[in-house]
């Protein structure tokens, strides 16, 4: 489709930057999932009309400067502590939307206690958990979610269960607790998967607004740089291998259980 603009013919835009996504270049590598995740969040903040009542908590890790990309109030947090910081924010502003945005090292390793206890208290916050199975920012070390056999700079021969244990399934772990309201896992490997993940994220934010309770959406994303794959290969790796270890879908939904 084309439109007349003066003498020049230009394409009618079918892609626009959502207003909540700041017009800056991100520092993410090509093929990284953070870009898509930021966009999904920005779209939801705009579509749900909550940009002006949302406070984000950024992690330590690749998304450390997430606050440079979304046009909302943001706090940083020490490594692993976003759920504790979010607890303080939310308890003071119970009517605002408070979310944390965390990677696997932040959420499932150094911040495991904060994650479990915020979930167990049923803090009315939403956690967006970006699981790419690797420490990206520090150069590709083993994460708590690295698959058995997967190579990293600290598991050069591939992760060995005998030595380092097994990848931690956070949604399933939190599902042992009474309090959480919504636990789900998505991925970004295809347009269909992206739309499904966005639906899960929307549900998490809606539950928070309805004061249903704690929600976490885990998203399997790729790290082509440290996985030493092309972006295409890494998406296929998620579909064929990673999602076998971390099954996609809704793990807990208290409202669905009620219905």
């Amino acid at each position: 489709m084309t439109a007349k603009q003066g003498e020049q013919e230009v394409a009618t835009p079918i892609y626009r930057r959502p207003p909540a996504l700041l017009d800056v270049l991100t520092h993410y590598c090509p093929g990284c999932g953070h870009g898509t995740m930021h966009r999904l969040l920005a779209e939801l903040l705009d579509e749900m009309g909550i940009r002006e009542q949302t406070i984000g908590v950024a992690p330590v890790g690749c998304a450390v400067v997430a606050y440079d990309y979304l046009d909302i109030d943001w706090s940083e947090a020490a490594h692993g502590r976003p759920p504790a910081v979010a607890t303080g924010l939310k308890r003071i502003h119970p009517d605002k939307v408070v979310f944390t945005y965390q990677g696997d090292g932040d959420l499932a390793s150094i911040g495991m206690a904060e994650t479990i206890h915020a979930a167990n208290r049923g803090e009315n916050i939403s956690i967006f958990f970006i699981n790419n199975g690797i420490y990206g920012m520090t150069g590709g070390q083993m994460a708590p979610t690295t698959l058995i056999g997967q190579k990293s700079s600290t598991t050069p021969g591939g992760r060995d269960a005998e030595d380092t244990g097994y990848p931690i399934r956070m949604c399933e772990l939190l599902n042992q607790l009474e309090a959480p309201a919504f636990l789900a896992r998505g991925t970004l490997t295809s347009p269909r998967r992206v739309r499904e993940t966005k639906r899960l994220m929307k549900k998490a934010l809606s539950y928070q607004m309805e004061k249903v309770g704690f929600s976490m959406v885990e998203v399997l994303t790729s790290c082509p740089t440290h996985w030493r794959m092309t972006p295409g290969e890494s998406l296929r790796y998620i579909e064929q291998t990673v999602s076998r270890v971390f099954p996609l879908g809704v793990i807990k939904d208290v409202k669905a259980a009620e219905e």
Partner: protein
Amino acid sequence: MDPSTGVGAKVLTSGNEAAAEAAIRAGCRFYAGYPITPQVELMAYMATELAARGGVFVQAESEVAAINMIYGASAAGARAMTSSSSPGISLKQEGISYLAGSELPAVIVNVQRGSPGLGNISPAQSDYYQATRGGGHGDYRTITLAPATVQEMCDLTYLAFDLADNYRTPVIILSDGMVGQMMEAVSFDHLPEPSPPPKPWALTGTPGRERNTVVSFRLTPEDLAELNRRLQGRYADICRNEVLYELAGPEDADVLLVAYGTAARICRQVVERPPQALPFKVALLRPITLWPFPGEALAEMAERVKGILVVELSAGQMVDDVRLAVEGRCRVEFFGRMGGQVPTASETVERLVGLFA
């Protein structure tokens, strides 16, 4: 802050509870803590009272979580507080560094106990270095207030909230097991209604304004140097404006005792009503702010006395600051007790006589 003044609406209260009550009266809206002796009464008081008076109490899963919850509540614009004792304060240090770097006000009470390691639960003053040097990583300082009485646990906690807000910095109340556990008659009625300054930087959602970010991260050295310069400028203001100390005893003293908190009470006894007669005149300089340290007052006193005896419940930490301030103007000696022991007035007199008679 003299416990004998203002008879009337005085109540028998422990230091820990006095700090908690003063915090609530100072407008503290959020408290998070983790159980540790000898400060648990503060936490229990908050669990009952803060919640009942419209604030938020959270029993955190760890000391680390507690300090980071404070970070969140402070970023949200609320007056926030946590408390612990020595080992727990060590765990909070990363969070305190983040508070300093993010320019967030917060009040942190350390009811010190015997150390190092797990140590014991008896009173000690061995966290002086940690409190006055910043404690965590980085070029930062924390205002450090040292109460000597239960009334001061009240008054200095109230003051801490104002200082924290005015300078956007964490403030440490450096107490100890004796002042925390002890009960004295305390008045709360003189505390004014709190009037926290506006916090346009707070995270409240963004209607009608540009977005706010509360961060300590500065990727470029230029930006981080700029943040550090701002902090150092603020610290210089604090040193100029906020020094507090108390002098007791004769102006023409031969020997000056320097002590804070519990040790200062023992020394004040020596000055006012010594258990044994002293062959010379003794005065006391009691720092109330340990950082900023009352170095100028001390340097002035050092010109007039024969010698100084620093008394601490430690192996000797504040004595370093005394020596830095005195710069050789007079002799500086140290008397300390470690491991949770408290020197008596008699022992202090013996040491004084042994050193200076």
